[in-house]
């Protein structure tokens, strides 16, 4: 029993990271209808940058607080320089383009930090045992951060005018422009949020799950699967989906074989699409013929 609890708890922490990344997918998709394949790279970049900042002598928490805005800046800059200029953004083009961005980011990280994976030092706090379940303080940091950031992002979209205008842009770009909402700003804000949640996920997860130039790939895929559970448009379901996926992975790793952990996300994706595609298909644009 305590085995199960242990697996579930650490799975939740793991899943909270996926949930944050999933928020990034939803943020961009709901405004631009782009599946941003570079989403995972924001996390890797934040983790590695924080490690370097700490190595340069900065206190841990200060380093994290500096790195997150930096990654947001990178995400927005990429949107401005590379994504915004493309006029005809078909699904095919958007996939190839964001794949290219992801590859550049990966390669740059490889050149700067080399191929080894490394972890950030743990955040302050002590590990403890609760009812036979060992709880690492870092896992509490992850869960707490995900709860705060997740709530903030959901609140922003659902309760602030600016958040609602973002959605309006996605649904009716022309009408949004007519009432004075700029799609340009909306797109920048969306990528900024994607960079923000990605970076936060990257720094809080780095002490346990490590960061490397290539760690964004699997993280991105799992975040996408979590986001798919919410049809790529629901923030709440995306967050929850991340938690579910994290727990499932841990159970498979614990009871089947650690090696198969990475296969879970794909199976979930296919199974969900098989069983309930209608709830999960990308909201089709109203067909006008």
């Amino acid at each position, binding site marked *: 029993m305590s085995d199960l609890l242990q697996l579930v708890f650490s799975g939740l922490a793991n899943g909270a990271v996926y949930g944050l990344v999933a928020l990034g997918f939803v943020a961009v998709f709901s405004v631009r209808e782009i*599946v941003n394949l570079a989403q995972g790279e924001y996390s890797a970049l934040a983790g590695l940058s924080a490690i370097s900042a700490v190595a340069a002598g900065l206190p841990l928490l200060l380093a994290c607080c500096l790195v997150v805005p930096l990654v947001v800046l990178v995400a927005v800059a990429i949107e401005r320089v590379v994504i915004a200029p493309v006029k005809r953004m078909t699904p095919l083009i958007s996939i190839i383009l964001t794949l290219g961005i992801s590859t550049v980011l990966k390669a740059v990280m490889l050149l700067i930090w080399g191929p080894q994976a490394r972890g950030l030092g743990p955040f302050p706090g002590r590990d403890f045992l609760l009812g036979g379940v060992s709880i690492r303080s870092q896992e509490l940091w992850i869960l707490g951060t995900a709860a705060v950031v997740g709530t903030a992002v959901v609140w922003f979209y659902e309760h602030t005018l600016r958040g609602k205008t973002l959605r309006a842009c996605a649904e009716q770009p022309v009408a949004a422009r007519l009432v004075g909402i700029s799609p340009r700003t909306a797109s920048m804000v969306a990528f900024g949020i994607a960079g923000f949640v990605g970076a936060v996920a990257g720094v809080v997860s780095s002490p346990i799950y490590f960061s490397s130039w290539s760690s964004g790939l699997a993280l991105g895929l799992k975040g996408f699967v979590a986001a798919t559970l919410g049809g790529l448009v629901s923030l709440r379901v995306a967050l929850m989906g991340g938690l579910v996926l994290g727990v499932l992975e841990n159970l498979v790793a614990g009871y089947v074989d650690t090696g198969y952990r990475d296969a879970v996300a794909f199976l979930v994706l296919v199974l969900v699409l098989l069983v309930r595609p209608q709830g999960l298909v990308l909201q089709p644009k109203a067909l006008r013929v």
Partner: protein
Amino acid sequence: MLPFILVGAALAAFPLVASSNLVNIGVYALIYGLAAIGLSLLMGLAGQVSLGHAAFFAIGAYTQAILLTKYQVPGALAALAAALAAMVVALLVGLPLLRLRGHFLALATLGLGIIVSVVARELDITGGTSGIFGIPKPAILGRVYDSPREFFWLMTPIVVLGLLLASNLVRSRTGRALSAVNDSEVAAECLGVNTFALRLRVFVLSAGYAGLAGVCYAYWLGIVSPEAAGFELSVQFLLMVVLGGLGTVWGALVGAIAVEGLDETMRVLVPKIVPGATGEVQLIGFGVVLVLLIVLLPGGLAQLWAMTTARWRRRTGPATAAEAAAAATGEDHREPAEPAAGGSPSAALAQVLDAGQVPDRGTVVLAVRGLTKRYGGVVAVDAVDFDVHAGEILALIGPNGAGKTTCFNIVSGVLAPTAGTVEVAQRRVEGRRPHVVASLGATRTFQSLQVFGSSTVLGNVKVARHLRSRSGVLRGMLALTGREERAVESAAQAAVAALGLSDDTERLVGDLPFGRQRQVEVARALALSPTLLLLDEPMAGLSGAERDELAALLRATRTAGVAVVLVEHDVEAVMALADRVAVLDDGRLIALGSPAVVRTDPAVVAAYLGTDAEADDLLQRATQSAAEHTDDGVLG
């Protein structure tokens, strides 16, 4: 054929002049190029992208390695099994995912790539992380292909053949249908194209190419490890296709050569610039090229080539319009359209409409009962009943927003109704896909134009012969379709002639004026040899003379026994043309009967003039008269 022979000869000559190191790079270019040709079919034809094509490559390589080293299966047989294994996996992945629109296949194949490398690492039979080694070099008739030069020569015919088959497929019935899907999925499906089935076939085929490339890879390296399924390799395949130019299979080969060159250059150059750089340093080049291509040159090298040749041609002398059009579509220049049989539009029409297929006059070809479509609280179509008979023209009129187009969308399978039934040719079709409806002989045109913009007028119309021809992927690849293609061509020519478009046959449809494009849609719908023709505002944008011609054509179509349903705003034109008129208002059928009766119906007058002085009274009478007329309609 000539280009393939030339490329084959050039490739065969390459090892004689190049250094051993260059030939070595060339071998990789050919192996990866084979996989890229398959991926280019998937991206260019099916409009889908695989981010895990290396998974199929690895499945092919592992299957070959296992069969050779553990079971001593003969090489050719093992290669066949390996390609089949990759195709079966693609089938299993594609079946659920290709039904969905959007990005799912891309992300799922990305996941598949991860799974294949996980499984390869975990299983004993795949040799864990170290993989399988000791794969013997291929030997054919006592000749062992073990040096780069020999292996290059072994690969050359395989790649040239792969290229030939792929380029045949692009020009085949399947290629034509899928290219139409990429321009307008809904129009292609309404002409009977089963998008899902065709995409699935192309996806499976592209996995077969990758699997076969994997077989060559296993032979060449003599070892297969989990890296064969690596994401980096998938990116590399993708880059080859994009660099060469989406939609051209030739581009895949050119792209493969360019990317292998880039790969080699980056591996040498990057460590010199960034001291101590190790690992997959070539990725920086791949990523940068990929991004630059999409931003600056989305058509890849093929676009560059087209631009350069166009400029060169302009300098040497103005090309004729026909030549330019032919170059733009990649089709051979053809002689001006041969006149259709008989020459006159009516004779051409008779040639298109298949007399044997048309049911007897008066047979019910479309029966709509209780048709309802709700969007949340809005009722777009509300319990509508009507029948349409062979050999009549039924006009559907009503104010804007009355639900006319929604009715069309439901009948043609574009939308599923909330409630109610639709029978086409005595078969229930509500909620079925448009291609099912089309296979029963019903097709349509569109209020907002849905022409296949990348194709010529004739190319557009040819798509409509999809259901009247049969050749599949295999026959298309082998180009064993000569007679069928001639039949398609002559039927399409006849449909074009029936609309008086023969002078524009070879023009790109997008270059025509709006009204002509509408006529292309009508020609396209007629070319299906339909029994039920649904026309959504076919008169819009047509001149007076053109309207008269179209009306004459529709009368002739009716005479031939086809049932025609027409949505039209020009009420006078409708009243002159239609046998019966159905009036929709606010989703409800308020009148159905002969033009003379409908014209004087008070409910219709109210709907059009909007007098609500005696609204209640009118409403009551409207319901009554609608019910009466509906009964008339059913009794026919």
